[in-house]
């Protein structure tokens, strides 16, 4: 009981952000569209994981673990659906469910508005996301997968930088 009480006190100090109707759905569609379209013209764009950045952002902003994990699951499954045959439905779904849950859980306890905090959290969540995918591939799909490549390291840094800028842009869509 004390834990619950303390948590509520903690939550009262951290603002929960809401968005205009349809903002999250529209952002998801735009992110998936960009993720699948832009690399046709600029192949290096594929290093970005926009669905992951959205999962992190909305998780941190909404600060509701249930909402965060459901959002992560939805965008992850949509990403799976638009991927190739080496990506079964659920691979990105599981990874983004966990990221969504943890992002919203952390968002409910810490102030994550500062760009440096966002940068660090994006790197951590990017690493966690890759880790879950590797574990899922190795354990459930019996597919050989390396734990770390230089491309992943670069991907984490690039996503973190873009994430900070993107989050500032998305802040403008908040209601409050």
């Amino acid at each position, binding site marked *: 009981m004390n834990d619950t009480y303390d948590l509520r006190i903690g939550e009262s100090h951290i603002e929960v952000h809401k968005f205009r109707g349809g903002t999250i759905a529209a952002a998801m569609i735009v992110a998936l*569209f960009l993720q699948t379209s832009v690399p046709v013209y600029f192949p290096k764009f594929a290093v970005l994981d926009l669905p992951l950045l959205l999962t992190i952002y909305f998780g941190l902003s909404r600060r509701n673990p249930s909402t965060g*994990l459901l959002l992560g699951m939805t965008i992850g*499954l949509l990403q799976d*659906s638009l*991927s*190739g*045959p*080496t990506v079964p439905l659920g691979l990105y779904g599981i990874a983004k469910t966990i990221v969504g849950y943890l992002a919203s859980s952390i968002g409910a306890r810490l102030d994550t508005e500062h760009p440096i905090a966002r940068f660090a959290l994006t790197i951590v969540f990017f690493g966690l996301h890759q880790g879950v995918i590797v574990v899922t591939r190795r354990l*459930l799909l019996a597919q050989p997968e390396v734990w770390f490549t230089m491309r992943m390291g670069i991907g984490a840094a690039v996503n973190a930088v873009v994430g900070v800028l993107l989050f500032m842009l998305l802040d403008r869509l908040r209601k409050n």
Partner: protein
Amino acid sequence: MVAIPSRHKSLVLLTGVILLQVLLLAVQIKRDSQGRLIRVWTVGAVTPFERAGATGIGSIRGIWNHYFALQNTSRENERLRHENDTLKLQLNQLQSKAAEADRLAALLNFRQAHQNVPMLGARVIGTSADTASQTIYIDRGERDGIRRNMGVITPDGVVGKVIESYRDTSQVLLLTDKDSGVGALLVDSRIQSPVGGAGEPLLTMKYVPNDDNVNLGDRVVTSGMDRIFPRDLPVGTVSQIKAGNPFKQIRIRPAANLERLEEVIVLLSLQPLELKKDAGTPAAEAVGKSAPGQGKTEKP
């Protein structure tokens, strides 16, 4: 009913959702994973945006190239590029009559020998949403006669095969994907071996014994053994060779520029393409087998 404390509800939900997705994965592992309804729905929902985006981006690029940046040079460049493609096909047609297993001649020969093989031009409108798989979406689907397992090429060489066909869109598995493969042979030595993707820009050629002689720059063409692609279509050139146990480790640079695909040709036939039997010499056989340049080809 067992009451769940509210602070644990999200944790229970997380566990449930992950278990559901694990089950989803398990179902897919057991069964053929193609043709899931959610894939059909999602592709159906997103590809109109991709199509509109491709058109929009194309229009914006067109306006920019034609009216703002290098007005005349850009237009001239585009015209020359189209003209170059046409000349390349014509050049292939001439070369195919003179030499066996010539890379570009194979494509031309194929089309001469199979004039009734319909082909369809298509525009690339999207790529895979992840970095693990190498697939593209094209703007032609079932309504245009495209079906699963149809071969996809460019004038430069093999691209991949159709793995899913929707109403107006198809998904193509590129040669560079880990799950991809094509029956191939080395032009000079006629050694046959499948070539597959490794999830990287270079392909791998497997099962070539260490005793066989392979040189850097050797050309690799389709063998026709996969019954998807006709013989003698360019696959790539040997770019790395290492001794292995018991087979050489050979890396192939794809003939088609798979990282910059904008237009492709789909071979609208699921029938194995039979070769002409009146050829005597290997060269004549190659000429008989394949010839490009004819058949129903639409530009997207």
